[in-house]
Each structure stands twice: as C-alpha cells, then as structure tokens.
C-alpha cells in the first residue's frame, strides 16, 4: 500500500513540475502516467484481492482445526506468491519512472564529432585543397544538434557547427541549420523556413558524416558549393497518389554552404534569389530491389554580383587572368539510387548504387587583367559521381566511387577521381572509415594528379534520429 501511495505522490509531484518539457516529452510522460495510473488501478484491485484473501485466510484460520492445517499453508503460499508478483509489478513501475532518456530534455540534444587523419602525396598548391599535403589531422566538425516541437503545428531544429580555420586554426561557430518545419498543414504540404539544406539532388542535403564516403563529391563541392545550405523557404508536396511522388520547390538567398550570400546593394527584387525544385519517385522492382530516381533544378535569374568583394570572399575567381563575375546561375541534375536490400537480412547485407549527374550553365561578366570589360560568357559544364557500396556484415561496408567533372568556370579544366573505402561501424554511434583516393587533374586545371589516404572517425553522443534522407 505504501508503494501505491508513493506512486500517487510521484504523480502528484509530476503534475506540479515546471513545464520545461515540451510536447514530445510531455506526451511520453503522459503515456507513462497513463500506464502508472492503469497499473495503480491494477495494484489497487490486486490489493483489494489480497485484503479479501487475507480476510478469508484469517476467517479460515480461525475456523480450521489444527489437523486440517494443510489448507491454510497452501493459501499462505498463494498469498505470498501474489505479494511477490505485486512487488515485482510495483518495482517495474517505479523503475519506469526513474529512467533517464537522452532526449528527456526538450529540445532533444546530440553531438556529432568527426576527425579526419590523412596523407596526401602533393601539397595544397598542387591539389587545390584547403588542407596541407603530407600528413594532416583535421577536426572537420563538431556539430551540436537540437530538435523539438514548437507547438502542435511545427517543429524546429538547429545545427551548430564548430570548425577550425584550415590556415589560422582559429575555431569558429557557425549556424549550419536553424529551421522551422510545419507538421500539420493540410493538402499533404510541408513548409520549411529558415536556414536549412535545400532539397537538391541526392546527397547535397546530407551532412558530411552521413555520406557514404569521406569527402563530399567534387561536383557537389564545386557546382553547389558544398552542402546545399540556404536561407529561404521550401515547400514540399507529397502528391496524393497511390505511387510515391514528392515535389519540392524553394526560394532563398545563397545556395551552397561555401557560397556567400548575394551582394544586393540597396534593394533586391525577386530575380536576385535562388529558386530550386526537385521531383523524386520510387519503385519497388521486387520486394528486395528498389529504384529511386529524381530530377532537380536550381536557377538564380540575376546573380547580383555573386562572389562580390566582401570580408569573407575578398576577390572574384579568375581564369587565365580573366575575372569572372557570376550574373546568372543555372544548374540541373538527375540522380538515381538502385538498392538491393533483402527484407530479412537488411541490417547485415545490402548493395547500393547511386549516381548523380549535374549540368551547370552559368553566365558570367568577364574582365581582363586590366579591368576592361570583355563579352559576357556562358560556361556549360558537366559533372558526375557514381558509387557502389556493399554492406557485407552489420558492422562492415565496402565501397567504390568514381567522379568526373568539368570546371564550372572553364569546361576544359577536367578532374577525375577514383576512390575505394571500407567502413567499420562499431555501433550506430561510432564509425571508422578508411579511404584511398586517386585524383587526376588535367593541365588546364593548373593542378597535379595526387594520391591521398583518409581515415575518418565519426561519433555521436546524446539524441540521434534516423532521418528520412538516411533511408
């Protein structure tokens, strides 16, 4: 009975707790409280049964003669058993209340860390990388992820990234994502607003540590500008069909984590923003084999002095001494993922082939070395990456990757790279990846071929979610 009282007190205490937990936790607590209430009822009923049994036992004890003592002994055993069962149940309920959950706080909080150990056969001047050649150790990022419900109509998430400047070593904090996402719009619509990774292609909106290889594909690095980060608004529509079709449209300033925001001067009209869209679908070819194609497009009608002089990017890019000032940005992409994922053993064995082809068709104002204006130019360039991964054990994945691209400013400058890697996932939260990459740069790039070996060590603590893009 004392335990029942304890539970009631515990519930009373919980009901007066400050409302620091938001919906998710509150809901969990509510469910737990419901469970406790149900069990309290059960316990009370069982306590009543025990009381009745005790009463009966007492009566029987008084009535039964000494030579019939066998019967009360059995009743006593039954009673004891019931009390033990009851104790066990109460203990379980109490244990349920005592547990700690990583996401007990609202928002749920988690950290991701990623360290890259590498060796490159050429220096940064020859590779074009912002990392030095030879041996290098690089804490690529530490991410703080927080997510939670805002109210019954929306949720929000924030990703704060801490990284070191490759040259000065100075640590900087950066808001990588901070966005609000609706959860209850009618018409199969979802709106996302704030800073987020815009939906373009297959891997552009995936964080580095979730990629199937160590480095972001070169074509995404160059044509998109790394992750597809934007400050904007995106609408996703699930087409109300028997077949899965998803359509996304968005608009925003800046598109690409490495790109600066457009320099706008005093005012900007709608043509100064980036507009993007993506259409994707999915086919179950067999229960174990699936095909997921998609097409994407990005258009900035009037890139108002993209790469304009500013503290972050003090100069325009140059090619052969000519200065390029982006005036219009146009990018299209086609992507395809073919997966063999056996239903029965999908945690132990899968094969995935993914390919994405991008076509860039940007228009530039050009100035020669003396600052005289030359005719504007449109540079059409292509790039592709393709990878194959084979998960042959719950902990092990082997992968190969091929990349090829034309420079978006000079389509005669071509780069290709071949990689092989092996991943050892000790658990969901602790993963090592060893990768070898050979990169070929042709003469027009002004860079040299080189070899590199990477060891990536990524870890997660705290809350983590299995996101839709990780499927």
């Amino acid at each position, binding site marked *: 009975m004392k335990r029942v009282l304890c539970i009631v007190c515990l519930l009373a205490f919980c009901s007066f707790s400050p409302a620091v937990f938001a919906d998710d936790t509150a809901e969990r607590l509510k469910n737990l409280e419901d469970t406790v209430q149900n069990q309290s009822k059960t316990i009370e009923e069982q306590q009543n049964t025990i009381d009745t049994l005790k009463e009966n036992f007492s009566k029987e004890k008084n009535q039964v003669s000494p030579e019939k003592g066998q019967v009360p002994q059995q009743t006593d055993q039954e009673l004891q058993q019931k009390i033990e069962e009851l104790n066990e149940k109460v203990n*379980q309920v109490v244990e349920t209340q005592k547990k700690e959950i990583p996401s007990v706080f609202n928002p749920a909080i988690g950290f991701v860390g990623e360290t890259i150990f590498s060796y490159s056969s050429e220096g940064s001047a020859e590779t074009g990388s912002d990392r030095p050649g030879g041996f290098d150790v690089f804490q690529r990022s530490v991410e703080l992820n927080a997510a939670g419900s805002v109210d019954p109509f929306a949720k929000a998430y924030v990703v704060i990234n801490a990284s070191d400047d490759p040259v000065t070593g100075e640590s900087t904090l950066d808001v990588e994502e901070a966005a609000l996402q609706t959860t209850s719009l009618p018409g*199969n619509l979802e709106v996302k607003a704030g800073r987020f990774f815009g939906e373009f292609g297959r891997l552009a909106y995936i964080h580095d540590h979730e990629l199937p290889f160590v480095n972001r594909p070169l074509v995404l690095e160059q044509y998109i500008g790394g992750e597809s980060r934007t400050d904007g608004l995106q609408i996703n529509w699930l087409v109300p069909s028997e077949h899965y079709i998803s359509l996304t449209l968005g608009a925003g300033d800046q598109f690409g984590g490495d790109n600066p925001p457009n320099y706008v001067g005093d005012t900007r009209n709608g043509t100064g923003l980036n507009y993007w*869209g993506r259409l994707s679908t999915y086919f179950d070819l067999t229960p174990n084999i699936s095909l997921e194609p998609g097409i994407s497009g990005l258009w900035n009608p009037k890139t108002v002095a993209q790469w304009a002089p500013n503290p972050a990017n003090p100069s325009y890019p140059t090619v052969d001494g000519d200065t390029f000032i982006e005036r219009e940005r146009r990018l299209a992409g086609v992507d395809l993922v073919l997966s063999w994922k056996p239903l029965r053993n999908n*945690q132990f064995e899968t094969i995935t082939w993914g390919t994405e082809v991008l076509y860039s068709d940007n228009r530039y104002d050009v100035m020669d070395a003396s600052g005289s204006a030359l*005719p504007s130019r449109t540079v059409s360039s292509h790039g592709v990456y393709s990878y194959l991964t084979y998960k042959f054990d719950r902990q092990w994945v082997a992968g190969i990757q091929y990349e090829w691209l034309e420079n978006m400013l000079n*389509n005669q400058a071509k780069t290709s790279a071949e990689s092989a890697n092996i991943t050892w996932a000790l658990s969901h939260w602790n993963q090592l990846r060893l990768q070898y990459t050979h990169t070929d740069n042709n003469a027009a790039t002004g860079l040299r071929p080189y070899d590199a070996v990477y060891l990536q060590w990524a870890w997660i603590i705290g809350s983590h979610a299995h996101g839709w893009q990780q499927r």
Partner: protein
Amino acid sequence: MGGNNADFGKEKYAMKSKLFSVLWILTLTGALCGWATPAHAAKIRIVTTLTDLADFARAVGGDNVEVHSLATGVEDTHGVPMKPSFVPMMNRADLLILIGFDCEHAFLPALLEASKNPRIQKGTSGYVDCSKGIIPLDVPKSTDHYQGDVHPYGNPHYTLDPVLAKTAIENIYNALVDFDPQDQAEFKHNRDAYFTKLDAKITEWKMEAKQLKGVKFVSYHEHWPYFAKRFGLDYFGTIELKPGIDPTPRHIEELTRAMKAEHVSIVVREPQFPEKVPKNIAEQTGATMVTLPIMPGGVPNTETYIKMMDYIVHTMVDAEQTRK
C-alpha cells in the same frame, strides 16, 4: 579564355532558357500526372508496423477494415526498411497501429513525418500505441549508449507473451470503437470470438510448455523475456553483446563457458540474424539450435499470430524433448 563558350549569341541563350523551362514544365507535369484524389474508402484504413498487429486488427476489425503491415514478417522488428512506397499507404491511413516502447524508433518517426498525415501523428487518436497498459520488463535505469541500443521504456517484445498480446488486442479494439462507434457491436463480437480462441490456445500452450519449466536458453537478440516469463523458462542471455551490438569474440567465449557450466540447452536464432554464430555456439555447448519467428510470417507456416505461437511452443518443446 580558350575553350570556353566565348560566343554565346542571344539565340543560343534563348534556347538554353527554353531547355530549363522545359525541365521545369516536365517537373510540374510529372507531379500533376501523379495526382489522384484518394478515394474515400468505406473500410477503415489501417497501417500496422508489424504483422502480429495486422493479424489482430484483421481479427477485430473483420470486414470493416483494410489492413496493411509495413513489415512482411521476415524483417527485424527494429529494422523494417524505410521504403518510400510506404508513404502513400500511410498518407491515406485512418489508424496507425504500433508496438510502442520505442520498438519502431529506427523507421517509424521518419516515415510518419514523410506521410504528412495529421490523423495518425503521435498524440492523435489515430496513433494507436498497443503498449498502453503493458508493464514493461527490462526497463533500463540509464539509456547511456554504453548499454547499447537500449529501449528507454523497456523491452518492447511483449506480444510474444499471448496473455499480454490480449492487451494489445484490447487497445486495437478501443481504437476501432473510437473511430467507428457504430460498428462497436461487431468489433466486440469479433474481439470476444478471437479472445475465446486465443484463451483456448493459451491453455493448450501452457499445458504443452510445462515441459519447458526451468529450461535454460539463449537467443541472438533480447526478444524473449515476456515469453520466458509466461511459460516458466530461464532466459539465460543473449548472443549480442548489447542490444544492437554484435558479439565480440570475448563475449562469445564467456557466453559459451557459462552456457556449458549452467547446462543451457537451447539456442534460439531469430531468422533475421545470420545462422553462423548461433550454430557455432550450439555446437560448442551441445545445445540445440532452433530458428523461431518473432512475428507472423517470419518462417513458413506462421502466417497468423496463433500459428506463430503454435510453431514457437512446439519447436521449443521438440528441442527439449530431442535433447532428453
């Protein structure tokens, strides 16, 4: 700048603009072609995460329901693939029935978000958590990842105890009555008929499982505490080091040694896990390895919950009898 398209006339520029316009039109047309207004079905559309829940929903709902399960039965309960083809199905669902206790945390939250169906989101009456009223076993005091991929609310595999499965059925019944009160009488009739059948089987299974009283067994994953408790078996341990974490050689060595010392007689291998390690452990310890489904359809001839429990109890009893 050699090699670049230095000469781009207005004509070429216009052509490229048209190409991009065509791409956008194709995108929109493709989307609109897929448009199909969902028919308002007379039947209650139910999506369940696992096949045992689908079996229960069909039993209680009868002809009034149309039930789809995300799992086919052969998957790991925690590892159902997140297929986009599930999304339209969930988008149209009236009720989503799940095991709860975070059993489906690896796939359900993302699918729910993608479904964009406000009727079945967590906290709504369409979100039917069958763990309501179940007292969980193995509730961890801490969910630090040192303990592996633990379930913070306790072990979620309670439907392997047929008595607790009745609580899940009751929750499904309540959800159906809430959704469609007009058909309450039919749901009640169906539920009672199923309970009668299940109760008879429970009595039968208990009788048969008397031979298993105190029998020690191990399994690959922690699927069996409720089953063991109900039928009086001694659940000795798991082959996994921790939930969701494969065994290390040292763990296998220690487990094997302990199993020999304690005369553990049965090694249960769930079919979604590889056979090699359980088989080796069984050979080294002299135990019998059995392959048991964890939801209907996991192995042949277990299409319904009752058939599955029949299979589990018979297989365990056979294994013990063979050993003797």
